[in-house]
């Protein structure tokens, strides 16, 4: 997908005026945050598990080359294959080659963010292979031809009515001509339409929440069971995963699994947590005949040596989305690419470049809630701050921002001038605020004053007041 992160401000403006979206976002805030809080409270060991989760991921990142080699060996030992891909293009081609090797005409897909990252669906479709999304949320946005707006709830921005309309429009070709109004009916119709697609698919593609080095396994976590049908019924199972999904052992996976669902949906466990190892065994009555892991780098190895390394601990639970006041206001599409919310504001610039995505690290109030709830304790605010510095260093911000930052830097290094300017500005603003103490319109701060008054300062600087009290 082509990023539109450059238009963050326009995207955000539209989102704020979209009343349906605002209702949906309110639901996210209300549901997920309460459920997570309850789940965390019910597990006294949660904070200690977080510390251990962080330690596991840090240990893996320190020895990533080694664990990847061990993982690949064990995949092969179990009868599968690993395909190493540096770029999105490499990965797309690899998936296509694998599909062609079994003359695939249709593939089912479990939810995979890497699939979104490499824009797999349009690519396969252009080559005559029909991709069918099977996660209900992904299926809905595939019909709507939209990107996901939330990492664990790709269609949370859609209302029931919009889903009804989409189903009516797209299910006509299956002879479904009645407009459904109940959620239960919609879920049932999707089940009915997708069931034969699972059975007819030649290849099933899933993502991976974890890759286990010890056993060469991939792990997926779902509530619907769609990923399990996808990886069980076709002749070939392809796992799409990025490098940093590796964990050393089954025990390490257990620790992270305890954190994942609680942080994501507030469940103790998602309904299905499935460990897949190699293709079907001799004597197995079902299961795929081939098992392939397409391992994608796409810039991640370089991140290991950068200030953004900690983002590679991310387990994609979405807790930072659910607790972010900016995400809660504008939703996922405003961010303009596959990953949104606070983790997207850190990861997207690393993949598509800061020039494209320089607005995203600014889309933060630095309130710090994302870091508080992140099971992997990723310091998201300080990494966003770091991206802001990078944007300036790489000349990725606008001319006005540059001049403002330059001017500020000049002033901040000269305390005497700083004090004088501060004094001037403070008394000017106090004067402008008379008699109400509020400023309704200010030329250089229209972004603020367009929608609300700016409270006027006291008229004297802090330092002046401090001195007056004789505490120099």
């Amino acid at each position: 997908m082509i990023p539109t992160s450059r238009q963050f401000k326009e995207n955000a403006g539209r989102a704020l005026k979209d009343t349906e979206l605002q209702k949906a976002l309110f639901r996210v805030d209300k549901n997920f945050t309460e459920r997570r809080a309850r789940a965390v409270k019910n597990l006294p060991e949660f904070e200690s598990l977080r510390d251990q989760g962080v330690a596991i991921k840090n240990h893996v990142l320190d020895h990533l080359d080694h664990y990847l080699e061990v993982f690949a060996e064990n995949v092969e030992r179990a009868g599968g294959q690993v395909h190493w891909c540096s770029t999105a293009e490499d990965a797309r081609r690899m998936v296509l080659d694998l599909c062609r090797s079994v003359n695939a005409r249709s593939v089912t897909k479990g939810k995979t963010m890497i699939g979104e990252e490499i824009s797999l669906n349009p690519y396969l479709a252009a080559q005559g292979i029909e991709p069918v999304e099977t996660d209900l949320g992904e299926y809905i946005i595939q019909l709507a031809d939209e990107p996901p707006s939330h990492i664990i709830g790709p269609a949370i921005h859609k209302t029931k009515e919009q889903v009804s309309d989409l189903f009516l429009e797209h299910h006509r070709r299956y002879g479904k001509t009645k407009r459904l109004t109940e959620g239960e009916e919609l879920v049932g119709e999707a089940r009915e339409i997708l069931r034969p697609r699972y059975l007819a698919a030649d290849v099933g593609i899933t993502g991976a929440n974890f890759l286990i080095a010890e056993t060469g396994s991939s792990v997926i976590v779902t509530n619907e069971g769609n990923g399990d049908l996808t990886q069980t019924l076709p002749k070939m199972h392809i796992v799409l995963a990025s490098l940093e999904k590796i964990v050393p052992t089954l025990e390490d996976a257990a620790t992270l699994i305890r954190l994942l669902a609680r942080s994501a949906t507030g469940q103790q466990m998602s309904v299905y947590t499935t460990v897949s190892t190699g293709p079907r065994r001799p004597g197995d009555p079902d299961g795929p005949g081939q098992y392939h892991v397409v391992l994608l780098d796409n810039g991640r190895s370089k991140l290991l040596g950068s200030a953004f390394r900690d983002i590679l601990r991310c387990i994609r639970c979405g807790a930072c989305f659910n607790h972010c006041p900016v995400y809660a206001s504008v939703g996922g599409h405003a961010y303009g690419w596959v990953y949104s919310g606070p983790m997207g504001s850190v990861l997207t610039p690393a993949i598509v470049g800061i020039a494209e995505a320089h607005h995203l690290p600014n889309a933060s109030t630095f309130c710090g809630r994302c870091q508080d709830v992140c099971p992997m304790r990723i310091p998201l605010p300080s990494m966003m701050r770091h991206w802001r510095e990078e944007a300036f260093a790489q000349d990725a911000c606008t001319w006005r921002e540059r001049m403002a930052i330059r001017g500020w830097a000049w002033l901040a290094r000269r305390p005497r001038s700083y004090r004088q300017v501060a004094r001037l500005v403070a008394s000017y603003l106090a004067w402008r605020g008379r008699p109400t103490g509020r400023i309704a319109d200010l030329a250089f701060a229209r972004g603020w004053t367009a929608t609300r008054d700016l409270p006027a300062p006291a008229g004297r600087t802090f330092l002046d007041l401090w001195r007056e009290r004789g505490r120099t």
Partner: protein
Amino acid sequence: MTRDAILVSIRDALGRGPLGAEARDLVSEHIRRHARNLVPDRGNVDADTKVALFSRQIQETHATLEYVATTDDVPGAITRYLSGKNLPAKVVLAPALAKLPWNEQPLLETKVGATRGEDAVAVTGAFAAIAETGTLLLTSGAESPQTLHLLPEHHVVVVRRDQVVGSMEDCWDRLRAQGPLPRTAMFVSGPSSTADIELTHYLGAHGPRRLHVIVVDR
């Protein structure tokens, strides 16, 4: 080769070459030992409490549950389940359960083996059950086709009391003890569900709409 290029890129970023023999051994030791991390206390209880905890928690996930005395009582329990739900007297069985006295239920039609979705009710065993979270572990294999765990509308799982363990870690121990991992080891906590429409919870997204657990005492 791409593999080598990626490994080199990782090592460059980490500021080192390939791990030396000693460092490799140290890291490999982590896998060989596969030591447990912190395991929550909740599942660390006596056998009876484990069964009670498992029963309570899996029912909180919208599954239903009953106890029977012996495995010989399972066919009768199935007949009752089917009539209680107004379902045709017809089930597909995992080979692991084929030897139960099904002929004592003359009206019940049974077949054994995998499914392609034509069966409404599957009855299977489990590899283990976890008290900590109210979770079943279902493994794939000749005795337990994975399609039975997924395609039928109703999934009935028979668990023996001695299969109820404390934690996921206990499952790993039992799995390792029986050899290499099966193709699929699926942890199941409740019937298939979705919240993808307006974050409302609906049962029966793609997998079984109903999950019924029969705990066998002996």
